[in-house]
């Protein structure tokens, strides 16, 4: 079984998105990036992000990630905050440390694109 199947596929994404979104909205380091008027649209973006880092089918490309984040002037602090919130979300859902490591690695693999390095 691949990672996406092991952690429970699309239902796992559904379970994670509210918890994750609540965490980032409450995190003063990064809440300003997520505090948009249209919460549904923001939640949809986060679903797409979680689907990607859970190893699910997605159409994110490095170019998309660069384009989407380049106006935000993001730094390592912001990126690390997202990873922390992601890991905390997964622990809350009872995901094993092995899987959390794999997910963090996928998220880490897009770091340069997100930070526009």
């Amino acid at each position, binding site marked *: 079984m691949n990672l996406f199947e092991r952690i429970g596929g*699309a239902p796992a*994404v*559904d379970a994670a*998105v*509210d918890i994750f*979104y*609540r965490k980032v*909205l*409450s995190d003063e380091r990064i809440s300003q990036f997520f*505090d948009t*008027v249209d*919460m*549904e649209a923001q*939640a*949809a*973006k986060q*679903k*797409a992000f*979680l*689907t990607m880092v859970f190893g*699910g*089918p*997605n*159409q994110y490309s490095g170019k998309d990630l660069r384009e989407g984040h380049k106006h935000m002037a993001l730094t390592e602090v912001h990126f690390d905050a997202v990873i922390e919130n992601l890991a905390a979300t997964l622990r809350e859902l009872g995901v094993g440390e092995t899987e959390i490591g794999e997910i963090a690695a996928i998220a880490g693999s897009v770091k340069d694109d997100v930070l526009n390095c």
Partner: protein
Amino acid sequence: MLINELLLHKDVNKNRGLNMTLIKFYDQMFPLQDNETVLDGLLRNGVDIPHGCRAGACQACVLQVNEGEVPAKAQTGLKTTRKELGYFLSCQCAPTAPIEVRFAEQGLARATAEIIAAEKISPHILRLRLSKVLDFHAGQYLNIWHETAEKNLIRSYSIASLPHENFIELHIKIIANGKFSQWAAEHLREGDNLAVQGPLGDCFYSAGDIHQPLLCIGIGTGLAPLYGVIRDALHQGHLGKIHLILGARESTGFYLRNELADLQHTYPQVDIHFVCQSQDAHPGDIGETDIYQFVKAKFSSTKGMRAYLCGADTFVHKMKKQIFLSGANMADIHADAFLPCS
């Protein structure tokens, strides 16, 4: 009718030894390949459908079904109300029988409604009752068209009545210098005709867990959809607690006080609170506080609750965030945000 047409095509195909599923999209028909999704089939045939993740996550490719069944998988993650309206994710939909689909929210019904009653029920609220010329869920909204020599004025109003009441009730806030509401208050009379279009929106009650606590919060004429939603919930046998919190700047902003008192008296599960900011003289049952603080203090956790938030858009967005952060699931938060008009 259309499905028969589609089935006929399927039979023809079967006779040819093919087993294809057909989809009808407006006036065109396309055969799907084995296990092909509606999204892929339409894209392959040159139809431009917006799409994103193709994983059932981003919901960019949502379409609406006119006739036929979509697999449950294609509605995974959609709000119950959207499911009931036939929304589905085209990237997750590989139908096994013919279906007819369209872009979401297209094909709005238009109709001419007769005004059954026009009455000012408070200094600032005009209540219109229209003949029931279209089907709706209480809490949805419709557009009213007012055609003038210079331009058309189109305004959206939420529906406070229930379908079986056989009329459409709207609460129109009479705004100083409001082009539409001033015209409506001065000119609309019983027996007049109005062009209406709709219904729209997914802020309505749908049965699910009848014991789930409902948290209904509104300001101003946000009461209109909430009055519809709450009575619809009761009509459908909702047993869980139904909290209604209404906010206004001044105590004169509240209306339907008697009707709400009756509702609370008749149904023990209904609990109503009035919250107003100003210190004007007002009856003793109106609390004097900020509505956000009031909700925060009364509902420190909204986990497991279903929320309906109606009123000015700034209020709705702020309250939505508050309700979400205090624990409610995003899918359980329904909102009807009123947008300002020029």
